[in-house]
């Protein structure tokens, strides 16, 4: 494994080729890195294949009708996840809207010199700590704090604005509203952290350019900083949405696990992930296979969101460069 060296006349130069050991270390590292990368891809394929294999009987039996039916009746062996797809998307979108508003707000607050740098760091850490709270603790907090707190508010909204579809039913305790609120809090750290990065990456000279044009602070933020950070903010929303789609435990505790499709925030609903969590322990036979099918549906939705998000980001950055 020796390579040609350049011979010097004087022999005073310290330049030498890398030793055999150096070269082996380099190759081993490179091989290891390739292997680790390949392993991740293989693992994803294996999981898809394994779940798909187990779901096969249900896929063959229910086909696309599984996606358009809202009945989950193990007794009659009738299964459909339309209500869960609806609940998953509805809860995730609402939670994302709330988390986007507060998350981007927090990111602006922490990066645009509203706070002294040290205080901003404290806030940042506190918000990141939200992500460290276990899902089940959020669920308990939702049951014991959010639901009781929502009861009077929901009652008022339903009585006064009952004509509005989102408030059109009476509050049932575990329902869409507490699930969405808790989900929004769980997604918030992701949105806040990644949008913060997007804002921090804006070079100082851009800020200078904005103020140099005579913007007020508000104009600098709304007309320059936010447009500049758009792709990063969008990335934070895609990741946050992915997180919301897959969130399981807290939702299983809060959403009411009822197969209905409703605009009302106060009706119980269900999501794919919480269906899996709540039905799996007692499932057997064809129901297990149907749950595997539901898992595939969830996986496909999550992957689609990520792929579409990545594509949109790639397109917008392409536009930027040329």
């Amino acid at each position, binding site marked *: 494994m020796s390579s040609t060296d350049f011979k010097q006349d004087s022999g005073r130069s310290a330049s030498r080729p890398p030793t055999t050991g150096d070269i082996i270390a380099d190759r081993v590292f490179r091989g290891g890195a390739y292997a680790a990368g390949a392993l991740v891809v293989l693992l994803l394929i294996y999981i898809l294949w394994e779940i798909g294999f187990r779901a096969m009987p249900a896929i063959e039996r229910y086909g696309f009708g599984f996606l358009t039916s809202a009945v989950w009746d193990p007794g009659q062996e009738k299964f459909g996840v339309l209500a869960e797809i609806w609940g998953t998307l509805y809860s995730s979108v609402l939670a994302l809207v709330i988390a986007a508003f507060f998350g981007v707000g927090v990111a602006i607050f922490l990066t645009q010199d509203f706070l002294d740098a040290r205080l901003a760091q404290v806030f940042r850490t506190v918000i990141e700590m939200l992500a460290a709270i276990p899902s089940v603790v959020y669920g308990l907090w939702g049951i014991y704090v959010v639901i009781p707190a929502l009861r009077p508010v929901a009652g008022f909204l339903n009585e006064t604005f009952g004509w509005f579809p989102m408030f059109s039913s009476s509050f049932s305790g575990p329902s869409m509203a507490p699930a969405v609120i808790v989900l929004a809090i769980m997604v918030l750290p992701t949105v806040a952290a990644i949008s913060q990065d997007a804002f921090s990456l804006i070079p100082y000279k851009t800020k*200078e*350019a904005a*103020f*140099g*044009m*005579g913007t007020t602070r508000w104009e600098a933020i709304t*007309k320059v900083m936010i*447009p500049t950070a758009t792709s990063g903010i969008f990335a934070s929303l895609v990741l946050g949405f992915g997180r919301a789609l897959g969130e399981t435990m807290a939702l299983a505790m809060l959403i009411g696990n009822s197969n209905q499709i409703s605009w009302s925030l106060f009706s119980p609903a269900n999501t794919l992930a919480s269906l899996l969590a709540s039905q799996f322990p007692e499932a057997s036979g064809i129901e297990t296979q149907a749950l595997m099918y539901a898992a595939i549906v969830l996986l496909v939705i999550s992957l689609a969101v990520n792929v579409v998000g990545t594509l949109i980001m790639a397109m917008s950055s392409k536009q*930027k*460069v040329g």
Partner: protein
Amino acid sequence: MSVLDIARPATDYVAPQKTVAAAAIDARISEIHYGKFLAVRDTNIAIEKNKITGFIGPSGCGKSTVLRSLNRMNDLIPSFRLEGQVQFLGQDIYARNIDPVVVRRHIGMVFQQPNPFSMSIFENVAFGLRLNRYKGDYKQRVEYALRRAGLWDEVKDKLKENGLALSGGQQQRLCIARAIATEPTVLLMDEPCSALDPIATRIIEELMLDLKKDYTVAIVTHNMQQAMRVADTTAFFSVDISRGGRTGFLCEAGDTEQIFHDPKQDLTKRYISGEFS
């Protein structure tokens, strides 16, 4: 001979204020501090209308700091403090009732690094117009600014493309177009060519000479030849290290011809002869 020796003789020297009838900006700065650090002292300078005033001097002499004080850009730095007055069209821009935002809308700025916004070429130029709620023909105004900046022919077919997709020299001209689209009274340029190649530099210098018909320009440059080529008036700044820190001050100002061929100050003479930089 070190810079130390050069800086000493001028310790308490204050350049005499030249009385100028047609000054757009008349700065009488006695001190500029960043926190406890005295960055600039005793700098009285007038920026004459429809002329180019060049600021030259060694690094750390405060020429950029002074330039940025002329449209209150330094207010972005929290510890910044200025003692003195900067008269702009007869008003002290540091007076209590003056909003720095308004000052910056009348006194535009072009920076050392090209810094177009991440938006289309058109929107970059229209930015100031929208900001000032301009009610008129945007297309015409944008085209005019881009023509003045000598960029129109290169970008007229791709106005929707992102400004950051342009080359460095084009980006800088875009920034100039952005700054002049609103027709500010004064244009401040902080080493606008230092990140550019000689050809782009040449284009921008010609542009400056063209712009002075309508605007008043002040430019900081690290390049003495550039000052000779474009400036009508040249201000030479130097560094005074006799008080511990590095404090910049205006050493001599006058017609460019006089500064380069008949400098009155010994320091100026040594600087332009290339003894130190």
